[in-house]
């Protein structure tokens, strides 16, 4: 990718290459993300419709495939209402504050061995920092709207995100102990091999906790009390309309993609093949299945995305005290205990880590 882009922009002065190449990579990634988010909305509706035994969107385009584009156009030609009591500047800044971290997190995510925008050492730390930053979009949206429902939603959401971020952070520590690096590429490399070499087996509780807190962090069902329709209308974005709402919407779906991708990378071996190192496929015509590829990552990500929808269709919304209880009293103890277990495993030299 890098070489290709370098050759492509060969005509530019050499100093600018280091700006142009990442820029082009970013554009490619952003287009993919936005398209992904658009189709994700469509799939969500289709999957849930399937589970409800309905048809779902089927009017726009063949079998409804262009539904999301119609939605996007609709959203953009709608009026952006800024309520009269709202703090105008913050009201319009809040959506940006939730979009920017959601997108910028992708900078450190490798999609295969070579495609990564910023290969920094402290990748996971960067991700955690950005995740913690995303709470501001919600809080400020709620405060700036100057509406009671929005404010309540923002407060709920902030306390919830805060609780689940700790569980998430502890789960990440477990991954780090196993992977021995903060760099996501290195973590995938530490899992090289087939499905039995991935971290989901030694870190099963953390895998579970991470995905659940990921759902809670993105304010998705069944943890969506921040926008619980039946209680506080639409929560923190009750006053948002048109393009401003679209930004929140985009951020939410990009975050879903992010959580699914991260879970795949950290616990399911990223782009490694399910069959890597398998003796049965060796030297057969199916040997190509053992190669690592971005497609494997796509399969894993799709599975987690499907799980997002599946959970949404299956579970009723949690009550708020139950959410807090789950976060503080179930997930955090599990992660702390498992970190202790990992420490013991490390001392006893069992597990995936290499003792130097």
């Amino acid at each position, binding site marked *: 990718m890098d070489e290709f882009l370098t050759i492509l922009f060969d005509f530019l002065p050499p100093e600018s290459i*280091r*700006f142009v190449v*990442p820029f082009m*990579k*970013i554009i490619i990634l*952003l287009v993919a993300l936005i398209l992904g988010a658009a189709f994700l909305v469509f799939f969500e509706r289709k999957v849930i419709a399937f589970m409800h035994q309905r048809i779902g969107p089927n009017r726009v385009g063949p079998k409804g495939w262009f539904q999301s584009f119609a939605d996007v156009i609709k959203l*953009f030609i*709608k*009026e*952006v*209402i800024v*309520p*009269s009591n*709202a703090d105008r500047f913050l009201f*319009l800044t809040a*959506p*940006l504050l939730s*979009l920017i971290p959601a*997108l*910028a997190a992708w*900078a450190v995510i490798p999609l295969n061995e070579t495609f990564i*925008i*910023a*290969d*920094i*050492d402290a990748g996971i730390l*960067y991700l*955690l920092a950005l995740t*913690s930053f995303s709470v501001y979009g919600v809080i400020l949206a709620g405060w700036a709207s*100057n509406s*009671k429902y*929005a*404010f309540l939603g923002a*407060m709920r959401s902030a*306390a919830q995100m*805060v*609780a689940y*971020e*700790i569980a998430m*952070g502890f789960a*990440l*520590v*477990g991954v780090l102990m196993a992977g*021995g*690096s903060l760099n996501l590429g290195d973590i995938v490399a530490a899992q090289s091999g087939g499905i039995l070499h991935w971290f989901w087996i030694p870190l099963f509780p953390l895998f579970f906790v991470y995905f659940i807190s990921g759902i809670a962090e993105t304010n998705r069902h069944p943890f969506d009390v921040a926008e619980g329709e039946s209680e506080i209308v639409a929560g923190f974005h009750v*006053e948002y309309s*048109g*393009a*401003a709402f679209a930004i929140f919407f*985009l951020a939410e779906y990009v975050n879903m993609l992010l959580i699914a991708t991260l879970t795949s990378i950290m616990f399911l071996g990223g782009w490694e093949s399910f069959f890597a190192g398998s003796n049965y496929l060796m030297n057969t015509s199916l040997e190509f299945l053992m190669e690592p590829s971005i497609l494997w990552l796509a399969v894993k990500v799709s599975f987690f995305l499907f799980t997002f929808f599946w959970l949404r269709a299956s579970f009723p919304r949690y009550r708020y*005290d139950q959410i807090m*209880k789950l976060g503080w*009293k179930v997930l955090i103890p599990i992660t*702390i205990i498992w*970190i*202790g277990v990992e420490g013991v495993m*490390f*001392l006893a030299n069992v597990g995936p880590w*290499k003792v*130097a």
Partner: protein
Amino acid sequence: MLENYLPILIFLSVALALGLLMLSLGFLFGRGSKTEAKLSPYECGFDPFEDARIPFDVRYYLVAILFIIFDLEIAFLFPWAVSLNKIGIAGIMAMGIFLLVLVIGFIYEWKKGALEWD
């Protein structure tokens, strides 16, 4: 090392630009009339009686404080987890004591009811 952070800077600017673009597109295409009722905050059809920014339960602050403490703990755990191979048994024991102290704190929170939400 710094070289690796340049794309992040570019990415942040691009993301900001994208957000601003979306907002301005919304203002550009989205036309409509602004009426007083439309611009008032959403509140069941009534005019709101008071400012929406009301005081709320002290419990939220407690949660935020506890979050800071645990966040710091995570910040300590990160360098520990990646240097496990280098610090040896003594390092692992050190973190064991540290975690033990904080687990005692966690038990205290739990038993005192600071984690209850009612």
